[in-house]
């Protein structure tokens, strides 16, 4: 598999800690965008550190673009680009300084360094800010520069570790566009970790859901939702005093789900077909609703079905994974 990733039984244990990564098996096809989705501390970043050769695995192995991550570290590093969790930038250097340094360190011929740097700055929309110190960049600008630096040597496989965390919606959309273009037009294989359901849903061809170091579900976002996810229904009472009564009625049809502040929601154990029964039950109790909406299954439903917990609002501290690493 020339540009793909094959992972077999990958394990990483830390001293006095649990297994951060516990026997992962997965394959990423060349040119595919693979979304690695999970809560903080699930093992996403540890996996990326191992795949980028920055952390030796305790057991198992993986091949990136055909090279073994344990035995052929330098060859792996030669064909990958990586933007790790924190944008690894020097606040005292300018964007252009960074590209000059990176193009030289990656061994680009002298004649190409300047033009390659300028091309990447243009591509990520940082031409105007190229001669400003990075310390004055916004979060989105730093992420875009980080991506440009990862692309300097035209990598065949790109690792992006939570690339949009902390970005505003506009910056996030810009980055998604660029990542999608890299995969579609340049054929770059993208391994993307994220804790954002929307990101995995919109960007990834396939998604692997990781929890406590293990992959608990894998497939295209659509197929996962079809296989595991269940619809939910949300009702907003016409009279706020009826909220408790509506909760009691809805609880007959499934377990509570996330809802808007004024609403009450449940995941429908019987699927979307039971919506009619919900309407009849509410009507039978004489309860009026101002708004009733059926929500299609989401990746959060998939995560809930696989782990018994909701991914949204999961606040397991990232520091746990970081400290271990």
């Amino acid at each position: 598999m020339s540009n793909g990733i094959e992972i077999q039984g990958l394990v990483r244990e830390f001293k006095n800690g649990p297994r951060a990564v516990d026997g992962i098996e997965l394959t990423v096809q060349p040119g595919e965008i693979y979304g690695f989705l999970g809560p903080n501390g699930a093992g996403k970043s540890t996996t990326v550190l191992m795949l980028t050769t920055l952390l030796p695995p305790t057991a198992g192995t993986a091949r990136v673009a055909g090279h073994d991550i344990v035995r052929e570290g330098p060859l792996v590093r030669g064909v990958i680009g990586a933007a790790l969790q924190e944008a690894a930038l020097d606040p005292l250097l300018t964007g252009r300084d960074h590209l000059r340094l990176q193009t030289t360190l990656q061994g680009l011929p002298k004649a190409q360094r300047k033009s390659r740097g300028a091309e990447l700055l243009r591509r990520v929309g940082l031409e105007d800010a190229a001669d400003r110190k990075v310390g004055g960049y916004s979060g989105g600008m730093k992420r875009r520069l980080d991506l440009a630096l990862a692309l300097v040597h035209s990598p065949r496989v790109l690792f992006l570790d939570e690339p949009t965390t902390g970005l505003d919606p506009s910056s996030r959309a810009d980055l998604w566009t660029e990542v999608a273009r890299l995969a579609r037009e340049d054929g770059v294989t993208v391994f993307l970790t994220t804790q954002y359901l929307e990101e995995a849903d919109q960007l990834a061809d396939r998604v692997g859901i990781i929890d406590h170091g293990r992959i608990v579900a894998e497939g295209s976002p659509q197929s996962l939702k079809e296989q595991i996810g269940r619809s939910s229904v949300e009702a907003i009472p016409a009279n706020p005093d009826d909220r408790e009564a509506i909760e009691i009625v809805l609880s007959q049809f499934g377990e509570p789900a996330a809802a808007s502040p004024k609403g009450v929601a449940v995941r429908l154990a019987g699927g979307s077909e039971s919506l009619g029964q919900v309407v009849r039950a509410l009507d039978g109790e004489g309860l009026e609703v101002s708004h009733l909406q059926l929500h299609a299954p989401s990746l959060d439903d998939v995560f809930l079905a696989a782990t018994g917990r909701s991914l949204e609002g999961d606040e397991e501290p990232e520091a746990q994974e970081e400290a271990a690493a």
Partner: protein
Amino acid sequence: MNRETIGEVGLIARRSVRRTFRQPALIVPVILFPLLLLAINASGLDVTKNIPNFPADSYLDFALVVTFMQGGLFAATTAGTELANDIETGFLNRLQLTPLKAPAILVGQLAGALAVAFIASVVYLAIGLIAGAHIAAGVGGALALIGLAMLVALAFGGLGAIIGARTGSAEAVQGMFPLLFVFFFLSSMNLPRDLIAQQWFRTIATWNPVSYLVEGLRSLVITGWDGTALWRFMVAAGAISVIGFVGASVSLRTRMERT
């Protein structure tokens, strides 16, 4: 060291120097603080020259080299802090993903500290001469003084880099500063060893390599070309440099554990 490695060192060195000069807070205290101490000591302790067998005609001549030593000490914290910053910001991870080798990072990182030490040494010397100091070894001795001061900076820079690489914390490196300062005061920095009355102090000063660094530098100012003082300086500086560089290389290699 092959041509490729020299190129890598040059690249990291340029970055280190550029970073250093973009942080005036790293340079200004290195120059001002030792000169301030020199001014206080040279005026307040000048009567010390009247002690029998005191080796200099003025305390300014005697104490001038202390500024170079303090400049070297600042170099240690600069080198360590810069390395720790690269670890804290994740920049070291970026370098790790390139073909760059650990020793090239280390040597390149020390370049910024050496640049500060060079500028500071030139300023110390110029201010000292303006204030009336006399360099017994002449113009050549003055140039040698700057060269040896750079060696002191290199030696202590390696020690700073060990702490920086091991802890990955700029605060930890800054915390090392007072510890090294104690070593400075327990040397022949303020008095010649044979004039130190307290036996325990004289014993520590005799075993303290810092004494030989101070005495080597001082010999150029107050004695002239003193072969014994200079070879002792070279042995002490060489030993500290080797310990610093090997220790920092091992620490950095451990930090840059990659397959």
